[in-house]
């Protein structure tokens, strides 16, 4: 088979808009999904990111139709699918443990959705071959799942999810079982396929790096709610609360009291009396408790001109390969983490040293919880 039989790109078709309108799921008294709303655009790579028990998988299962919502609506391209059974939703799905049929070979696994749609044999062969070429498994068509590695099984699951050209593909922690190196490789591959086919992907993961690497937008979920929704860079740099700040990457959070509030900047007084300035996302009244957020890699050693400066003692140093992490105790029991790129120069002060740490005001935010 030549490369003539590849998938026709769907990009630009404008299909695959998904709207979640306040969907709710209760188990007993607990709302495991609590009025989740999101508008996912055609061709978008959208991730639901959160710790286990945050409701992300339940949300995905409601989109797939395996779990019936207790409230709200799910719409695809304007059509209400809330009460449509899963087999008539026409969505592609990649399961956490691949769910490859053990009694069917790779070809028949990938052909399954087409057989369900009564696609004619000639077209079926062409489409399956095309999907297998896309995931580079065309040589393995006659194998069975038990004869494949984890990464290859994953590719079968992807080929099976895209072979019938769904405009939306749902993926439930598809890389959870793979080791770290293979994971990154597969992330690139999935992203590449998604862009080539122009399909909408809703991706559930608890791995923040994975979500940031692949997503156009991320919804951070916690206790059944979306805490924040936006592009990875925006959420990383401007988290709206402490949960998001701590969940997506490392975060320094310094507690204190708001002293003065200007238009988009505020002054926070630490408990030991040090004054720190930071950006302010929304209105707040002076005098209330608040915290300041800054990423470890934004900190530097030394006193820094018009930015924030604190002094403290080095408590711990860890070598992390590409960077060196230093933990500093700054008055009143607050610890700050400083990440320096490993430039081969020893990477900052030794344990026990007294140091100053500084960072630009623009890189810190006031969090109100």
């Amino acid at each position, binding site marked *: 088979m030549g490369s003539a039989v590849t998938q026709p790109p769907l990009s630009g078709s404008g299909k695959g808009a998904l709207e979640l309108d306040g969907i709710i799921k209760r188990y007993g008294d607990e709302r495991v999904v609590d009025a989740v709303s999101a508008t996912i655009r055609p061709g978008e790579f959208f991730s639901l990111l959160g710790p286990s028990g945050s409701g992300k998988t339940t949300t995905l299962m409601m989109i*797939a*139709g*395996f779990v019936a919502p207790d409230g709200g609506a799910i719409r695809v391209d304007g059509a209400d699918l809330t009460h449509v*059974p*899963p*087999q*008539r*939703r*026409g*969505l592609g*799905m990649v*399961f*956490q*443990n691949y*769910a490859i*049929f*053990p*009694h069917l070979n790779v070809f028949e696994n990938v052909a*399954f*959705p087409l*057989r*369900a*749609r009564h696609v004619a044999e000639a077209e079926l062969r062409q489409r399956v071959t095309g999907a297998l070429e896309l995931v580079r498994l065309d040589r393995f068509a006659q194998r069975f799942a*038990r*004869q*494949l*590695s984890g990464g*290859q099984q994953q590719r079968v699951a992807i080929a*099976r999810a895209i072979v*019938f050209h769904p405009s939306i593909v749902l993926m439930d922690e598809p890389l959870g079982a793979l080791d770290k190196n293979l994971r990154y490789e597969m992330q690139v591959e999935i992203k590449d396929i998604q862009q080539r086919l122009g399909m909408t992907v809703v991706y559930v993961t608890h791995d923040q790096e994975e979500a940031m690497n692949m997503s156009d937008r991320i919804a951070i979920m916690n206790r059944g709610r979306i805490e924040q929704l936006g592009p990875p860079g925006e959420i990383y740099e401007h988290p709206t609360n402490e949960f998001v700040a701590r969940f997506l990457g490392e975060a320094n959070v310094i507690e204190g009291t708001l002293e003065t509030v200007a238009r988009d900047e505020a002054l926070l007084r630490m408990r030991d009396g040090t004054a720190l300035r930071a950006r302010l996302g929304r209105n707040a009244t002076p005098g209330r408790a608040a915290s300041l957020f800054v990423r470890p890699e934004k900190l530097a050693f030394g006193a820094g001109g018009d930015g924030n400066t604190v002094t403290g003692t080095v408590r711990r140093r860890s070598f992390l390969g590409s960077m060196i992490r230093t933990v500093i105790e700054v008055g009143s029991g607050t610890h700050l983490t400083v990440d320096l790129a490993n430039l081969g120069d020893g990477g900052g002060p030794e344990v026990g040293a007294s140091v100053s740490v500084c960072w630009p005001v623009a890189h810190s935010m006031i969090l109100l919880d």
Partner: protein
Amino acid sequence: MPPRDSPPKRNMLNRSALLMLPAFVMLAIVFLVPLGWFFAQTLFVNTDPTGLWSQITDVLTSRAMLQAIITTNWISLVVTATVLLMGYPIAYYLANRNGLRFTLVVFCIVVPYFTSIIVRTYSWMVLLGRTGLINHALQSAGMIDSPLPLLYNKTSIVIGMTYVLLPYMVLTLFAAMKSIDRNLLLAARGMGASGPMIFWRVYLPLSLHGVISGALIVFILSIGFFITPALMGGPSDVMVAMLIERSVEITLDWTSASVMSLFLLAVTLVLYAIYYRVTDVRRLMGA
């Protein structure tokens, strides 16, 4: 990448094998030794060794034996098919339920399993006999004039044996169905498959090893069945085990009984070898 999982080799010569010693000794004393002694006595001591082969062929090709083999096979096949058709839906129900309904159905399946076969067979005779419950009820209702011949024919044998053997099939199928990954069924549904397609293309193939194991175990048990066909069958419904019993008890022809027993044992062992190949016995036992 090469496929991984090769099961770890079991070392049977370790000390825990000693735990099986009492059972093995018991089995040897009450089963293997008497059986060997019986075969040796009847075939080599009491029989002229030169005529042994012709004696064997005579017994196995006798009209009575051929008729019994045909009857045994036919009844066993019908029983196996009936048990399978009845057991599959029950096992499916059990595999997809839990709580009270599960417990109730398991109770109904397992309690007869622990009840004496004779008791169960007699209770069918009470139901099916000329003056039994069914005939009595039908006559009282005026639906029939004379009693239906429900007992002492092949149908009654099949009914009785089906009832006795049903638990073996249900429990075997249940184990196979429980091991089916539910995600595969969800995946099939998510890919657009209808209910019948999921059953024929996914569920049935994945439960097929249970069907084969269950059918083999029921067939193996059927071909050696004695009590139920002896009590519920008619004069012409003679199965191999009954023919053996007649040789021992009535005609006192122990050599023929011995040859027929060996034949039945050989067939059973061959079928069991097949059963062992298809069924991962260790997995059935939860290992």
